[in-house]
C-alpha cells in the first residue's frame, strides 16, 4: 500500500524531530474568534469545536499540519478484497486519560455513536453500513457501495472510551438542538496529547500535557500547558497579541498582518486555506423578485453571468481588500482538491468594455438592479469584498443593492432559497470534487443540492454526480469529474472570487506551520530555542 508507506515515512520524520526538541515546560496562550461549542466530539461538525477536540481526542487517521493524512489511532488501513470492506489495524498500548485501554470495542462504539441521529457527524459516515470488530486491535468498516475515499471522512471522527462514555450516561451524542446536555459535553476523556484541566465556556479552557501519551518521542510535544481564550473582537484579539497577553492567535485580520509581522517579538505564518469564496445567483427561475426587470430573470441569460464574471477585478480585490492574502480563482475549489486543473482555475481578466458589450447583447445595455445578500461575520473581509464587487458591477450598469448581515441571518436565506444573489464560501473537507457537486451543483433533492440555490438543474450532470459515489475506477471517476466541471464552468453558474489564505500570528520563537483546514495541532508546535 503506497499510502501506508508514505504515512510511515512521515511518522519517522516526525519522530526524529521529536527526539531533538527539549521537553521544558511551556505554556501556550492561544486565542481565536470563537469558542468550541461542546466537548462532545460527535455533537458538532464545526471548525473551532474540532480544533479543541483534536488536542484531547484522536481520530483513527488525522491530517498533519500540511494537510496530509497520517496515522493516529490506526496504524495501517486499506480496502480488503471486497471493495466495500475497509480494514483498520489499531495502535496498541494506547490508554485514555482516565487510564482505560484503547481497543477495537472503543472504535466500534465511537463510530456507531457518531452515526446516531443526534450526531452531527453522521453525514460523513452516510455510506457506512456497519463497523465490526475483527480482533482486539482490528476492525472492518463495511460501506453500502465501494467508497474509494472513505478514509478521508474519518479524520475528524474522534474515539471515545466506551466504558467511560456509557457509565456517564453519554452513550448518545449531546443533542444540542433538543437541549440535550450530557456529561461528555463538559468533560473529556480522550487519548490525545493534552488533558482537560478546566473549562469555562466562552471564557477560558486550560489543557495540560498528557504524561502517558503514546506519541511521546513521535511528536515534539513542547507545549506543556494550553490556555485557550476566545476573543471575539478582531481589534481586541490583535491588541492582546501585540501587548503580549497571548502567544498565538488564529484569524488575524488581514490589515493587521503587517503590524504583527513588523513587531519585534511576533511573526505571521500563512498557508493556502481549504475555502473558496464566490457569488451564486438564481439562474433557474423564470423571473426573480429582487430585481427591477419585469417578467424576466437577467441571471437566466448566460451572457449576463459572463459579463458579471468579467466585470470583477479579482486582482484589485486581492491587492486592496485582501492585502495580498488570497489566491484569485476562476473555479469554486482550492488547488488541492481532486479535480482541480489550471484551466479551470484561470479567470477572465477584468474587462469592462467586453462585459458591457455582453450586457448589450443580452438586452441589458441599460443595466438592471438586484439585491446581493452578503454575510458580514463569516469570511475574511466578506462585506468589503461584496462592496468592492458592487462598485465593479455598477460600472457595467448593474445596480446592486447590498444587504449584509450576520451569518446566522445570511445562511438561512440560501437554505430557504429566499435569495437570488448571494455570497458563499465553501470548504472541501474530503479534498474531492464530489463533495462540491453534491452540495452546490446537483439540483436540490432530499439528500443532495441542499446548498445549491442557483436553480441550476441539469439531469445529465445530476446523473454523473450520482454515479461518482459508486465508481470504483478512479480514472473513470476523474474523467466524470472533469466533464462535470467543464459543463459547470461553461454555464458560469457561480462567480468565483478567490481562495482564502490562512494567517496565524504568534510569538516569533514559535515554529508552527499553518494547517490548511485551520486546525492547529499543538503537539506539533516547537520553540525556536
Amino acid at each position, binding site marked *: 500500500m503506497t499510502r501506508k508507506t508514505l504515512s510511515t515515512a512521515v511518522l519517522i520524520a516526525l519522530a526524529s524531530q521529536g527526539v531533538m526538541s527539549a521537553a521544558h515546560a511551556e505554556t501556550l496562550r492561544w486565542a481565536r474568534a470563537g469558542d468550541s461549542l461542546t466537548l462532545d466530539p460527535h455533537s458538532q461538525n464545526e471548525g473551532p469545536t474540532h480544533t479543541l477536540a483534536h488536542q484531547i481526542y484522536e481520530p483513527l487517521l488525522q491530517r498533519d499540519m500540511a494537510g496530509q493524512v497520517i496515522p493516529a489511532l490506526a496504524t495501517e488501513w486499506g480496502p480488503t478484497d471486497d471493495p466495500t470492506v475497509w480494514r483498520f489495524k489499531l495502535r496498541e498500548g494506547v490508554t485514555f486519560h482516565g487510564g482505560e485501554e484503547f481497543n477495537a470495542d472503543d472504535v466500534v462504539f465511537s463510530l456507531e455513536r457518531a452515526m446516531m441521529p443526534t450526531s452531527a457527524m453522521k453525514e460523513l459516515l452516510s455510506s457506512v453500513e456497519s463497523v465490526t470488530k475483527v480482533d482486539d486491535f482490528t476492525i472492518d468498516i463495511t460501506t453500502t457501495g465501494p467508497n474509494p475515499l472513505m478514509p478521508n471522512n474519518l479524520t475528524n471522527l474522534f474515539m471515545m472510551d466506551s466504558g467511560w462514555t456509557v457509565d456517564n450516561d453519554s452513550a448518545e451524542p449531546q443533542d444540542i438542538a433538543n437541549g440535550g446536555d450530557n456529561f461528555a459535553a463538559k468533560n473529556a476523556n480522550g487519548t490525545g496529547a493534552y488533558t482537560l484541566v478546566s473549562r469555562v465556556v466562552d471564557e477560558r479552557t486550560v489543557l495540560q500535557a498528557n504524561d502517558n501519551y503514546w506519541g511521546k518521542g513521535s511528536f515534539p510535544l513542547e507545549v506543556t500547558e494550553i490556555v485557550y481564550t476566545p476573543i471575539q473582537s478582531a481589534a481586541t484579539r490583535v491588541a492582546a497579541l501585540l501587548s503580549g497577553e497571548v502567544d498565538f492567535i488564529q484569524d488575524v485580520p488581514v490589515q493587521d498582518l503587517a503590524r504583527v509581522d513588523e513587531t519585534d517579538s511576533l511573526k505571521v505564518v500563512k498557508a493556502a486555506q481549504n475555502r473558496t469564496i464566490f457569488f451564486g445567483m438564481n439562474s433557474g427561475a423564470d423571473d426573480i423578485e429582487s430585481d427591477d426587470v419585469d417578467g424576466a430573470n437577467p441571471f437566466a441569460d448566460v451572457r449576463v453571468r459572463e459579463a458579471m464574471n468579467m466585470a470583477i477585478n479579482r486582482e484589485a480585490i486581492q491587492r486592496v481588500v485582501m492585502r495580498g492574502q488570497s489566491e484569485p480563482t476562476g473555479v469554486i475549489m482550492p488547488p488541492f482538491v481532486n479535480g482541480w486543473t489550471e484551466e479551470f482555475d484561470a479567470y477572465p481578466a477584468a474587462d469592462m468594455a467586453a462585459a458591457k458589450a455582453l450586457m448589450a447583447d443580452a438586452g441589458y445595455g441599460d443595466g438592471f438592479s438586484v439585491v446581493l445578500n452578503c454575510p458580514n461575520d463569516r469570511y475574511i473581509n466578506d462585506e468589503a469584498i461584496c462592496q468592492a464587487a458592487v462598485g465593479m458591477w455598477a460600472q457595467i450598469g448593474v445596480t446592486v443593492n447590498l444587504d449584509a448581515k*450576520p451569518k446566522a441571518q445570511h445562511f438561512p436565506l440560501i437554505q430557504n432559497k429566499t435569495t437570488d444573489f448571494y455570497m458563499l464560501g465553501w470548504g472541501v473537507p474530503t479534498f474531492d470534487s464530489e463533495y462540491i457537486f453534491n452540495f452546490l451543483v446537483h439540483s436540490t433533492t432530499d439528500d443532495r443540492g441542499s446548498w445549491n440555490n442557483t436553480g441550476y438543474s441539469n439531469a445529465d450532470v445530476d446523473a454523473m454526480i450520482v454515479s461518482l459515489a459508486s465508481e470504483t475506477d478512479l480514472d473513470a471517476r476523474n474523467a466524470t469529474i472533469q466533464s462535470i466541471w467543464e459543463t459547470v464552468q461553461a454555464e458560469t453558474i457561480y462567480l468565483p472570487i478567490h481562495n482564502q489564505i490562512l494567517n496565524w500570528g504568534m510569538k516569533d520563537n514559535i515554529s508552527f506551520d499553518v494547517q490548511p483546514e485551520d486546525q492547529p495541532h499543538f503537539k506539533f508546535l516547537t520553540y525556536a530555542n
Partner: protein
Amino acid sequence: MFAYIIRRLFQGALVLAIVGFIAFCMFRFIGDPYENILGQDATVQDRLALEERLGLNDPIPVQYFKFLGNAVQGEFGVSYRNGIPVAEMIAQRLPATIELAVVSAIFAVVLGVLFGVYTAINRDGFLANFIMTSSLIGVSLPTFLIGILLIWVFAVELKMLPSFGRGETVDVFGWKTGLLTASGLKSLILPSITLGLYQMTLVMRLVRSEMLEVLRTDYIRFARARGLARRAINFGHALKNTLLPVVTIIGIQLGQIIAFAIITETVFQWPGVGLLFINAVNFVDVPIMATYLLLVGTLFVLINLVVDLLYVIIDPRLRLDGTEAR
C-alpha cells in the same frame, strides 16, 4: 407601604410579561438557528426534522407561553449554540457583568457627585469651567471608540493594562470574583472607565444643575442666614436635597450601564451577560436572547423599586402616606 410594594411588583411583573412577549416576537425575525446547529453538511430532511424537534413550527403565542411557563419555574431552556442550560450560562456570566456594572456605577456616581458639587459651588471658577467643558468631550465620543482608544494607548502602546478579559478570578461562595486578585483589579480598570465615563458625565452635569437650583432656594439662604458653616450647608442641606432627583436618574442610568455593558464587554472581551447576548444575537440563540431580556427587565424593575424606596427613605414628606412616591 407594604401594599405599595406589592402593587409595584405586580406592575413590574406585567411589564416583564409584555417586554418578554415583544422581545420573543421580535426574535422570530432575526434569523434561523438551523444552519448554525446543523452545519454545512445538513440536508433538507435534517432541517425539517430539526424544525419539528425545536417546536419552531408551533404558533408564536404557543412558543411564547411555553417559554414563559418554563421561565416562571426557573427553566429557561437550553442554548441552541452549545446545549448548556441557559440559566446555568447566565448564572456563570452574571457575576462578571455585575462586578463591571457596580464598579462602573460607583466610579460614575462618586466622581460624578464630587465633580458636580464642585462645579456647582465654584460656578465660575476656572477649574470648574475646565471640568465642565472637558466632560462634554466624554459625552461627545461613542463608548466603543473610547474603549478602543484606551486599549490602544494603555494595552498596545504602553503595555500597562490588559486589553481583554477579567484576569484571575477567585471563587467566593460560588461567586467568581475578580475583585480579590491583582490581575482581576487591573483588568477592571479600562472597562469600567469606558463604561462609567459617560454616566459619570451625566451624573456630574445633573448634580451640578440640581445643586445650582437648590443653592438658590430659600432654605439654603436661610441656612446661610442662620450662620451655618459652608460645609454644613453644601453637604448637609444642599447635597441632600440635590440627591432627591439625582437618585431617580442614577437608577435609570444603572439600567443604561447594564445595557451599555454589551458594547464594553464586546470591546474588552469581558465574559459577562452582555457578551453572551451579542454572541446569542449573532447565533440566533433565541433562549439566551429571551432570557437576557427578561433578566435585564427584571433588574430594571428591581432597580426602579429600590429607587422608589430610597426616595421614601431620603424624603420624609413621603413617609406618612407613602402611597405615591412621585
